[in-house]
């Protein structure tokens, strides 16, 4: 792991039009190259909003974001070249096949010809989708769609990968395949920023996590540090519940 942060966030604030409270409230983060960084929090805590700002989907109300040493406000085109995004929703065309979807998204990242074809074949193989690659996505199971959704975000081999709950609603088999391949990608140098409600998964997958609640980072560190630093907590879920309390959220 390098000491130089690949993502530097300072006092990031986002207040949506008409909202009385900020969705993200003064978040400051440093994510280093080759980290698997988990952004954890209850519903409505500000995880997706933070990731959306980092990806350039939302503009920040205040604060500063630097990605790969460049200010995100003025260098969005460069940033879009080096990031991959796997949204929480299956953001794919249901009437197209997996191969057609990947051909399209790959081309949007500038991939073409044999290079694109080989990458699609490789990832479809890796994720066990090669046999159904030419079937329409609407005929896929939830887990298969999740895997294609992930491939669309990693096809161009980005430096930084943003994953918004990539394993939500999938079976154990699909989840294991996804996590294993993400670990492989991380080993090859990809920085991963990941949000999840799945604490056990985050505990084993992330090198470092931050717990966010009401738009603020309440704690940050490796899972081991957080568990040992909170008395009586045996795992990350205990830490999470201890810090965010048990009250239900909207």
């Amino acid at each position, binding site marked *: 792991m390098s000491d130089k942060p690949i993502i530097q966030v300072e006092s990031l604030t986002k207040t949506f039009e008409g909202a009385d409270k900020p969705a993200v409230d003064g978040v400051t983060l440093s994510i280093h190259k080759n980290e698997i960084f988990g952004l954890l929090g209850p519903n409505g805590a500000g995880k997706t909003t933070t990731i959306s700002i980092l990806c350039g989907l939302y*503009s920040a109300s205040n604060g500063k974001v630097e990605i790969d040493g460049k200010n995100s406000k003025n260098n969005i085109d460069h940033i879009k070249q080096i990031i991959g995004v796997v949204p929480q929703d299956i*953001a*794919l*065309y249901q009437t197209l096949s997996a191969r057609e979807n990947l051909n*399209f*998204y790959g081309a949007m990242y500038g991939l073409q010809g044999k290079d694109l074809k080989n990458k699609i074949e490789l990832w479809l193989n890796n994720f066990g989708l090669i046999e159904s690659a030419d079937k329409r996505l609407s005929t896929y199971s939830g887990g298969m769609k999740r895997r294609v959704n992930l491939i669309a975000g990693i096809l161009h081999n980005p430096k930084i990968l943003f994953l918004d709950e990539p394993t939500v609603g999938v079976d154990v088999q699909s989840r294991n395949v996804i996590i294993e391949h993400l670990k492989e990608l991380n080993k090859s140098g990809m920085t991963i920023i990941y949000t999840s409600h799945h604490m056990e998964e985050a505990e084993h997958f992330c090198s470092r996590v931050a717990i966010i609640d009401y738009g603020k980072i309440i704690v940050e560190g490796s899972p081991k540090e957080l568990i040992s630093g909170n008395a009586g907590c045996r795992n990350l879920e205990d830490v999470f519940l201890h810090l965010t309390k048990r009250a239900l959220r909207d």
Partner: protein
Amino acid sequence: MIKLLAAIKKEALILLRDRVGLAVLFLMPMILIFVMTLIQDSAFKSLNERGIPIIFVDNDKDSLGISIELGLRNSGMCTFNNMIDGKPATAEMIEKAVSDGKFLVGIVVPKGATEAIRSNVKVLVQQTLGVSDSLQKPTDSVEIAIYIDPITKKSFLTSVTSSLREFISEIKTKIMFQTFSEQISELIPDKNNAPENAFSQSQIIKYKEVYASKQIGEIVPNAVQHNVPAWAIFAMFFIVLPLAGSMVKEKSEGSVLRLQTVPTSYLVFLNGKIIVYIAVCLIQLALMLSVGKIFLPMLGLPTLVIGNSILGIILLSVSTAFAATGYGVMMGTIAKTEQQGAIMGSLSVLLLSAIGGVWVPTYVMPELMRDISIVSPLNWALNGFYELFLRGGGIVDVVGDSLKLICFFIFTMVVSLIVNRYKRKV
């Protein structure tokens, strides 16, 4: 370029797999052309007052009967018939045939009509020249019977009766001159000096009806000439449904969100859509024109005449396709849900088409509606096609309408980009 090609391919695949959308784009307008043309065919015939079926019975078999028959045959205002169901028409058959709706007008010239005119004129001439007994009286007048279907337009009936009066007057004048000639010849022994019956040989003043068209030959506005371009334009604008629908679907399914994170301009996606849907519009138009050229004549309808300017047709078609696609993109950008897009899109196109003269031609609309019609881009396109198909215009004659359509496309694009920027500004 690679990105644009990928966007075009993606859009084309999505469209090709939307069977309902394709049916709306291609089948629906073809059916509309068939149905509307068949429905409006008789209305247009009546409107043009040409080809209205007339049944004629000539019991006179003399100058008047022959003159009326020739006049009706050559007038071009009607379809002349003297047979009913393959049998020679008789005075007894004619009333029933008209009341059954087989003919709009029936005319019976009675036996001895010419002879009655002749004897009356002779009495009048002889009395004028003082060569006969002044107490000699004209014979009773003859009656030409006209049977009329109640749906016949009054203007057409007026022109038929006017024509009959004209034929009778002409024949009376002719007989009068003949009688005068004969009587004068008897009074003047030197027949070489007798006035020649030259009047009947020539018609001093003639009429010629010419439709103001640059086309060689006359193209009369008929149901085919109106309905084929009108419904083709309607179909082109109806792409608003699948186009706006696909755009809203992209938003709701999250594809747009992912597309915002890729290093490709929004315009590339938009251009991909625009190119595919412009191609769809042009295919639609080609299909509709082929319906007018090939299939409608098979149903006994007139063949579509497309004029002489292929370049004009290309310019106008491409401009219309741009305008229609731009409208679809604008609706897709503004609409928040698929239902909203479908309702807004279809209702607005129906309204614009009604205003624009697709359903009913603007030239039969009240003046107020004609004034309103100029706001509809469908009207600009239709006017352009009238210019090419009816008035025989060339590319220069449709530049104005094409420019309006292109300006409309630019307007829709500007609105779409502004709305899109506003919506993305989160």
